């Protein structure tokens, strides 16, 4: 059996990952030369001239795709404890999961029929 203290390794790894990014950003800030001309401050220095700014409302179509992703994401999480106990739950567990997935497939059919994932 694992104990909470075993997760200290994960914590250390996490802090190393965050620390690496932080230290790199700080090093760049202090070690590199900084000449802040208007050309250098552009988002894409050698690319296309940017128009407007990033703070404008965008289409709800992206949001619909994201929220449908969240639905199926959460659904898959329910499958995880089922898959671990697949053998001990047996046929009953299979039927239970079938009902669950069937209801969600109904919703998926509705989405496809309404064209929720088409990009018009």
């Amino acid at each position: 059996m694992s104990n909470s203290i075993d997760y200290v390794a994960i914590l250390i790894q996490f802090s190393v990952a965050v620390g690496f990014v932080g230290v790199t950003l700080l090093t760049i800030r202090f070690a590199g030369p900084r000449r802040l001309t208007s050309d250098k401050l552009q988002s894409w220095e050698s690319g296309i001239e940017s128009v407007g700014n990033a703070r404008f409302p965008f289409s709800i179509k992206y949001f619909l795709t994201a929220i449908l992703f969240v639905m199926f994401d959460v659904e898959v999480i329910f499958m995880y404890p089922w898959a671990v106990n697949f053998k001990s739950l047996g046929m009953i567990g299979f039927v239970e999961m079938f009902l669950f997935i069937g209801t969600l497939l109904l919703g998926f059919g509705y989405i496809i029929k309404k064209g929720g994932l088409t990009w018009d």
Partner: protein
Amino acid sequence: MNQLIFISLSTLTIVSALFMVFSRKPMYSVLSLIFCFFTVAGHYILLNAQFLAITHVIVYAGAIMVLFLFVVMLLNLNTVADQIKTMGFRVAAMIGAGMLFLVLLASLKSTTLGTFSFPEDNGMGMVEHVGMRLFTDYLLPFEISSILFLSAMIGAVLLAKKEKR
């Protein structure tokens, strides 16, 4: 050692939550909320709820925060929204906050200050145990949650999709 981990984790949680509330920039609020979710997942691990912790990270820090970011980006951030500052609004906010404060105070009264120690691990929060309970004792809530998913899907499609004529 236990005490130290708990206190530092709690401090990080509270500081990031406060930063989320007081930050003037919505993006910074969202990012500090993500950090807050990660620290809450750390609390779950301290309480031996491993499956809950990883689910919390995947669903909340991953999926729900994507939605939050999208909602922030759906708003028009160029113009500063004029805040509602009528008298009735202020009174209502004061009463609401006061009631919450009373509830917190009441719950604080009944708690006793103790030291934190890791609870004994009996595999309660591991995925096998959670799965066994979920598919036997808590089968009905599980099946009902599929209806919830269905209604959420239909609602999202209905709200966001234009009917073709």
